[in-house]
């Protein structure tokens, strides 16, 4: 039997090769580029360093229950991952102002946010990966409402975990980019790479840049710093104990065909008080459940099961789910 390998995708720094059994091989190359491909170079050892960082970070995230495409490392610059359909929207989480955020809003670099910020970008080189609102991403069909909720909550959870992990090795996580993909059965999981190319990391003490900004700013010894990140991650003997908490809100509404006596009584009162513009009142329920696990497709399925079995009666009620990670 001849095994036909198909190159699924060839990017600026990686190749993705289709294997059998819903798996892919991700090959990390030494090429590096910046400013939409204006600046391009080959850096010896860069592919291996990013492959190692990705492997280590995916293993750490898997440890905390984040659903990722990572399966195993194949060679020094290759990972075996689950095959997914990458969605055209990437999420960026920011703890401190830097990069395009400063340019876009004219703010100074290095200001910490009170709460981490999540932004969505449309993956399109020709358009220079523009910022996109969730409303646009949904209405153009790039993601659906459920995926939007999962992306945001998972991004915040990943941030929470990685901030703690990097703190342990004396590094400050400034910002990072995540990509998500859909598995064959439609589950959204974390995909692509998480490496020094896709995040900003500063030395906690000196503020020294450890990430791809070294290349963008011509600071030199890029691969040495990448290797240092990998080395320090490898030295972690015990992962930080992190209290994970995902709040799931299930909102239950009566179907329109069902009598809503409480709503009817309330609208009568509102009209009596002179709010003539009120036309209908519906009274539903809002149930908040806290889970000691990370958000994701699995937790979404669990919430749906709970909602169908107990929280809502599908005969008379509809429900919607929202996640928040704290």
């Amino acid at each position, binding site marked *: 039997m001849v095994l036909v390998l198909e190159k699924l995708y060839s990017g600026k720094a990686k190749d993705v090769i289709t294997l059998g059994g819903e798996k892919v091989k991700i090959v990390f190359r030494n090429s590096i580029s910046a400013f939409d491909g204006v600046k391009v170079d080959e850096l010896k050892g860069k592919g291996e360093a990013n492959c190692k960082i990705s492997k280590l970070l995916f293993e750490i995230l898997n440890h905390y229950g984040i659903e990722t495409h990572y399966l195993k490392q194949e060679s020094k610059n290759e990972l075996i991952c689950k095959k997914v359909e990458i969605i055209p929207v990437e999420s960026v989480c920011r703890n401190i102002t830097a990069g395009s955020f400063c340019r876009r809003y004219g703010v100074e670099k290095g200001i910490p946010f009170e709460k981490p910020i999540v932004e969505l970008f449309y993956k399109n080189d020709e358009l220079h990966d523009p910022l996109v609102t969730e409303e646009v991403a949904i209405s153009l069909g790039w993601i659906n409402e459920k995926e939007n909720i999962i992306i945001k909550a998972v991004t915040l959870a990943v941030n929470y975990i990685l901030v703690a992990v990097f703190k342990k090795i004396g590094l400050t996580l400034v910002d990072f980019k995540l990509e998500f993909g859909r598995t064959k059965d439609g589950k959204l999981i974390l995909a692509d790479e998480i490496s020094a190319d896709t995040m900003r990391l500063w030395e906690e003490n000196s503020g020294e840049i450890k990430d791809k900004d070294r290349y963008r700013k011509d600071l030199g010894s890029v691969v040495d710093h990448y290797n240092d990140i990998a080395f320090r991650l490898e030295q972690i003997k015990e992962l930080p104990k992190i209290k994970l908490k995902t709040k799931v809100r299930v909102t239950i509404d009566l179907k329109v065909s*069902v*009598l809503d*006596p*409480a709503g009817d*009584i309330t609208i009568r009162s509102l009209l009596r008080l002179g709010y003539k513009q009120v036309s209908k009142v519906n009274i539903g329920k809002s149930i908040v459940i806290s889970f000691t696990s990370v958000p994701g497709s699995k937790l979404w399925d669990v919430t749906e099961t709970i909602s169908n*079995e*107990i*929280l809502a*009666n599908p*005969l*008379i009620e509809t429900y919607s789910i929202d996640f928040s990670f704290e």
Partner: protein
Amino acid sequence: MKIGVTKFPGTNNEQDVLRALSSFGIEGVLIYEKDTDKLKDLNALIIAGGFSFGDYLRPGIIAAKTAIMQELPKFVEQGNFVIGICNGFQILCETGILPGVLTTNRSTKFVSRWVYVKINKSNSVLLRNSENKIWRIPIAHFDGNYYATNEQIAELKKKNQIALQYSDEEGVISENSNPNGSMDNIAGITNKEGNVLGLMPHPERASFSYLGSEDGRTIFQNLIEELK
């Protein structure tokens, strides 16, 4: 003959049901949520009314998920009798053993009063010899507003499963005699096989003349005769 009467936290009618049964010389057995092993010795189970587990989320839903109720479909399939009264009717709907659901009364008020119900031609021996009779019987509930899809209602009618309907003293079924907004004035229904009856009115509270009515005795009497 062994008849079980359920007692969940918040059930408050089990003693009334036991008293009604004992007036026929039958000592009912109290059945708690974990008593699944006792089901095999029972010939019938009466799910007594009250507010199981506080009825906070939806009436009957928490009780419907208890171990004993999860075993109930099997018990019913074996042909045993099950009667759900008030909260018991709500529980049976939430388990899916009976179709539909009991929602909040149209008045948004707790309704506790005597009503009349008309007994229809029924597929259940529990209502034997009662066709077209009009019973005087009390109700006491906040969520007795029966709701089902039009297809489910049509199916219930076709199989003579609409056992009791709220009516006036003459047996006239109208909006005026509907105490809670139930679709088609439905006060009680049976399953397709006729061995499960769920009803909002309380037959155990209409089982002695000193209570003001003995009309509810018929259900217990039919049950006991059938089990003899």
